[in-house]
């Protein structure tokens, strides 16, 4: 009976020491600046399109106000909005507008009305592999490729011959249904009709770009901030025969690009304290500079938000 106890004791002591170390290190972190206010942690969740820019915001904001820590996670606009409805998150990034029924649910659940801020603009870009000779496409053709019962399933139907490929079936790359980009695409390209089943529904914009970059017959879509050298962004024509417009800050600015959209941050009720200061900073020139550096379009460059 005695032996196990003797074994246990040093272990117990070790655990206590470890716990103390953890406590001490936490204190140390908080006490870096004497007299600093206790650390506030803000949860920032949602759009995968915005996760890169949100991370840079959070990092840079640490220099502006060290007492506030912003924890950024992705998952898709739908995931962030679901968390907002549950009331478990302070700031939600969304690449689409909140739907009226979602606003209702949030009101019912938390008693507060969600408030949205437009923090930048983006062009939803349509990508093909770099080796694909196609350079522009009309929205109608895009819908025929992506929608349920659409007629375009092979590149040859578009008059495109992809070098070095025998089977020219179009490999559809899409996003999971939690994605705001997915919903925006469905609304503005498919006219609210459903996607064709069998597309690879990936978790993030980065995965979409990677898969399209490594698959000669693939087509995919995501925010234009994710472009890489392995893929090509298509110019879009709103009607067949109309002039196609390539996604760019200028084309988003003058609204000539058909798939321009706003990027939002939502809060529950009017933001207060640290959350309000954070959003104000994002809307300031410093925050907007980061929007531009991340490949999106800052507010000042675009016409007034609607």
């Amino acid at each position, binding site marked *: 009976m005695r032996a196990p106890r003797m074994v246990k004791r040093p272990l117990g002591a070790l655990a206590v020491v470890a716990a103390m170390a953890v406590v001490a290190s936490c204190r140390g972190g908080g006490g870096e600046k004497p007299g600093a206010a206790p650390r506030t942690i803000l949860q920032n969740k949602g759009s995968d399109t915005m996760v890169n820019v949100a991370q840079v915001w959070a990092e840079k904001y640490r220099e502006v106000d060290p007492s506030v820590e912003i924890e950024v996670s992705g998952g898709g606009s739908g995931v962030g909005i679901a968390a907002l409805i549950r009331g478990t998150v302070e700031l939600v990034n969304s690449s689409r507008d909140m739907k009226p029924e*979602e606003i209702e649910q949030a009101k019912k659940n938390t008693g507060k009305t969600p408030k949205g801020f437009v923090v930048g603009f983006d062009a939803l870009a349509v990508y093909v592999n770099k080796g694909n000779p196609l350079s522009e496409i009309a929205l109608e053709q895009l819908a025929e490729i992506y929608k349920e019962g659409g007629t375009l399933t092979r590149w040859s139907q578009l008059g495109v011959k992809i070098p070095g490929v025998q089977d020219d*079936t179009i490999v559809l790359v899409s996003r999971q*249904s939690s994605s705001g980009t997915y919903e925006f695409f469905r609304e503005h390209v498919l006219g609210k009709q459903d996607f064709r089943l069998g597309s690879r*529904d990936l978790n993030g914009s980065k995965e979409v770009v990677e898969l399209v970059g490594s698959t000669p017959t693939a087509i995919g879509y995501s925010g234009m901030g994710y472009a890489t050298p392995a893929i090509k962004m298509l110019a879009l024509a709103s009607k067949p025969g109309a002039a196609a417009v390539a996604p760019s800050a200028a084309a988003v600015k003058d609204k000539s690009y058909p798939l321009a959209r706003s990027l939002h941050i939502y809060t529950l009720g009017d933001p207060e304290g640290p959350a309000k200061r954070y959003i104000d900073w994002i809307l300031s020139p410093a925050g907007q500079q980061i929007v531009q550096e991340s490949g999106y379009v800052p507010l000042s460059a675009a016409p007034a938000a609607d």
Partner: protein
Amino acid sequence: MTHAHGKETLKRARASRPAWAIVGEKLLETAIRVSGMSAIVFVLAIFIFVFREAAPVLFSERFDLGQFLFDTAWYPTSANNVRYGTLALTVGSIAVTALAMLFAVPFGLGGAIYISEFCGPRWREILKVVIELLSAIPSVVWGFIGLTVMSKLIVQLTNAPVGVNVLNGGIILALMSVPIVVSIGEDALKAVPDSYREAGLAMGATRWQLICRVLLPAARNGLLAAVLLGVGRAVGETMAVLMATGHAVTIPHGLLDSVRTLTANIAAELGEAPAGSEHYRVLFLTGLLLFCISFAVNISADLAIRGLRRK
């Protein structure tokens, strides 16, 4: 009455032992019984919880069970025509699992036989440690290997358009289940008494005959359990298949088609489905379906063992 009487006799019979020893033994016995029963309680509790979350949609007017089970159209967030058909997901799960077992059962049982019957003691220790290490690799890491290494290999070797597909998921799941099949299969073979081996060799059987005709039949139940646990691991695996299979709702026509499994679908969509919504409840119903599938696998294996025994 009889109970009190029983206690009396117990007291008399063990009068020589101190009272605390008797109480302690009773307590220990109860504790062991409770922990044994807890398995049943947990399984029932999980089933009831999942069922409770799914029940409102199962019994609602708008819900069509036939469509849920036998339709391939999975459109949970459609703007104008919401459909909850899980056939493609079920077929995806079964296809990936079956392929995984096709690889994992021969390799796993072969490995178990080698370690248990042919291996020298030194190699046995090395192999066991390495196989345990293999089973300790987290599933996200497997998924990552599938997404990056395997998918490129598959594209190079098979000329498939996309490397994340049934083949990729099957191989990854096989690699994940082999360690389980090996270690439990090896235990089952070890449990066969040495007298069987000695008797077989004494009768002039070769090693091959000994394994085929004596050891495998004798260890049948344990080996089946090993395979079943492997199947369980493969069916229930989420993260790795989510990353390696391509996540496309479609009935595969070949090994190189992308699929989506029931588990991956739940993992991908539960986060966005608002708690209590129809989509959320249907996802729980999908969980119930998964539960039923593994229950059916277990029951049929159990019946198979009984059938074999009767022969």
